[in-house]
C-alpha cells in the first residue's frame, strides 16, 4: 500500500521537464491546480486535458506510473463522487429508495472526479520529474523572502530533505522489527482496537529508539562535515533560470489566461 504512492517518487529520465528549474515546475503545478478550479465548462476541461496530456508526453514518464498514484486515493475519489452524485439538487433522472440522481449531480460528480484525478496526476508529473532534493531547493528559494519575517526557511528545507532520505530506511526498519516480534509470538492482527493498539508497543518503542539513535548519529556526521546552518553555505547545484524556464513560464501564463477566457466567454 505505502509502496503504491507515487507522489514523492522520482522517475529518472532525460526530458525537458526533468531539466526545468524546480521553481518553474512548482509554480506551474500551482497554476494548473488553479486552472482546474477556474474551469467550469467542458471547454475548460478540454484545455486542461490537452495541457496535462502534453506534459505527460513531454515528461517521458510512462503513463502507467502516473495512474498508479491514483490507487491510494481511490476511496476518497469514490466518496467524493458519491456525495456529489446523490446530494446535488436538480432535475431527478433516476430515483430508488432515498437516493436521487439528478442531472446537476451527474455533472457535479463528473467535474469533481476530473478535478481530483487531474490534481493528483498533475502533482505526480512534478514529483516524478524532480528529485526530492531539487524540490526542497526550489521551495527554499521560493520561500526565501519569508526569512525576513524570521521563518527558518533553510532549516525547514534541510529537514524536508533529511525526512525524504530516511523514510525508506525507517520503512524497512519497521518491517524488520515487526518480523522479529512476530517470531517472538507477537500478534499484530487479531483482537479489538485496544488490543491492537497495545500490540503496537513492541513495534513502536524500538522504532522510536532507532529513529532517535539515527538522528543522533546523523547530527554528529553533519557537524563533522562542517554543517553549521545556512549561513555562508554555497550550493553544488544552484538554481538559475535558463531561457527554457522563462519560456515555460510564458506558456503557463498563456494557459492560465486561456482557461480564464473560456470561463468568462462561457457565461
Amino acid at each position, binding site marked *: 500500500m505505502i509502496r503504491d504512492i507515487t507522489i514523492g517518487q522520482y522517475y529518472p529520465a532525460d526530458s525537458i521537464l526533468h531539466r526545468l528549474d524546480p521553481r518553474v515546475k512548482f509554480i506551474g503545478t500551482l497554476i494548473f491546480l488553479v486552472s482546474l478550479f477556474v474551469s467550469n465548462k467542458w471547454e475548460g476541461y478540454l484545455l486542461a486535458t490537452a495541457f496535462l496530456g502534453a506534459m505527460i508526453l513531454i515528461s517521458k514518464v510512462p503513463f502507467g506510473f502516473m495512474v498508479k498514484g491514483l490507487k491510494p486515493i481511490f476511496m476518497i475519489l469514490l466518496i467524493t463522487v458519491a456525495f456529489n452524485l446523490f446530494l446535488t439538487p436538480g432535475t431527478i433522472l433516476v430515483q430508488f429508495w432515498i437516493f436521487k440522481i439528478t442531472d446537476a449531480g451527474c455533472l457535479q460528480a463528473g467535474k469533481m472526479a476530473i478535478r481530483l484525478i487531474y490534481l493528483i496526476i498533475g502533482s505526480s508529473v512534478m514529483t516524478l520529474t524532480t528529485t526530492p532534493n531539487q524540490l526542497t531547493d526550489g521551495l527554499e528559494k521560493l520561500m526565501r523572502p519569508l526569512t525576513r519575517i524570521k521563518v527558518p526557511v533553510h532549516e525547514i528545507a534541510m529537514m524536508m530533505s533529511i525526512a525524504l532520505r530516511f523514510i525508506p*530506511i525507517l520503512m524497512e526498519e519497521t518491517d524488520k522489527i515487526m518480523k522479529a516480534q512476530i517470531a517472538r509470538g507477537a500478534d499484530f492482527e487479531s483482537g479489538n482496537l485496544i488490543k491492537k493498539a497495545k500490540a503496537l508497543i513492541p513495534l513502536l518503542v524500538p522504532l522510536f529508539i532507532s529513529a532517535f539513535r539515527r538522528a543522533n*548519529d546523523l547530527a554528529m556526521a553533519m557537524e563533522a562535515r562542517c554543517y553549521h546552518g545556512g549561513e555562508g553555505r554555497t*550550493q553544488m547545484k544552484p538554481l538559475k533560470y535558463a531561457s527554457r524556464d522563462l519560456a515555460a513560464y510564458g506558456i503557463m501564463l498563456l494557459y492560465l489566461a486561456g482557461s480564464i477566457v473560456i470561463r468568462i466567454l462561457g457565461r
Partner: protein
Amino acid sequence: MGIIKASKLVFEYLKYNDEGKVEETSRAIDRVDLDVEAGQFIAVLGHNGSGKSTLAKHINGLLIPTEGTVWVDHMSTENEEELWRIRQKAGMVFQNPDNQIIGTVVEEDVGFGPENMGVPTEDIWRRVDESLRAVGMTAYRHHSPNKLSGGQKQRVAIAGVVAMRPKCIVLDEPTAMLDPNGRKEVLQAVRELNKKEGVTVILITHYMEEVIFADRVIVMDRGSIVMQGTPREIFSQVDTLKSYRLDVPQVTLLAHELRTSGLQIPEGILTIDELVNAICQLS
C-alpha cells in the same frame, strides 16, 4: 609536532541522577599521549568500550577534552574559532553507513561538505568528481544511496570526507557493519587514499586482518594506550593481546601455536606466505 597531537588527554563522562546532580563520573580517556606524523597509516585497536571511539571524536572537535589538549595541524580543538577549520582538516567517517549520508543522490551527498565550507560551485563539482574517482564510485554518482551495498555506501561516505580535502581522515569502525566483500572494498579505498593522495589515516577497528598494513598499531584498553608498535611487534604478543579481549589473525595464531609446540618459527608472522616459507625452511 605531527599533524595530530594529544597531550595528557583526559575525557570524563558525567552521569546525572534524577535530580540533575552529578552522580558519577567515568573516565573514558585516561591521560593519552599521541603524536601522528603526516602521511602515516595508524590503526587503533581495542574492544568495545575501550575508549577508542571517544578518542576519535576528539580528533575533529566533536568532543572537547576534560583535561589536556588535542592539536590538529597545530590548532587546539578547544579554540572555538578554529573549529570549522579543524573539522575540515580532520574528516571523520562513522560506523553506520546509513546514518551519515545526507543527500538523496550520491553526488549531492559528496558535495555536502564543500557546500558547508562555502566552496564556489564549479570548485565543488571538481572536488566531487575527484573524490568519487578516488573511491571508485563515479559510475554510481546519480544513484540513490538507499540502493547501494554497505561497502558502496561507506565509500560514498569516504568520498564525502575526501571532497573536503582533509589532511587526515579518522575512520571509526567503518567496516563493523559490512560483509567481508564490503570490508575489502572499504579497506582498499582507504589504503589508496593513504598511498596515492598522502592522506593521514587513523583507522579504528577490531578486525585484526585490517591492521596488518598499518605503519603503526595502537592498542587501547580502559581509556589508555597499552601497546604501541608496528603490526609485527604487536602481533608477536599473542597472549597480551588476548588479555585485552583482542584476537590475532588465524595465520598469526597458528604460527604462535606451532612455536609454542617447539617449532623454530619467528613471532609476529602476518601473512600466509611468511608462514609457509618459515615451515618450508624447517623441513
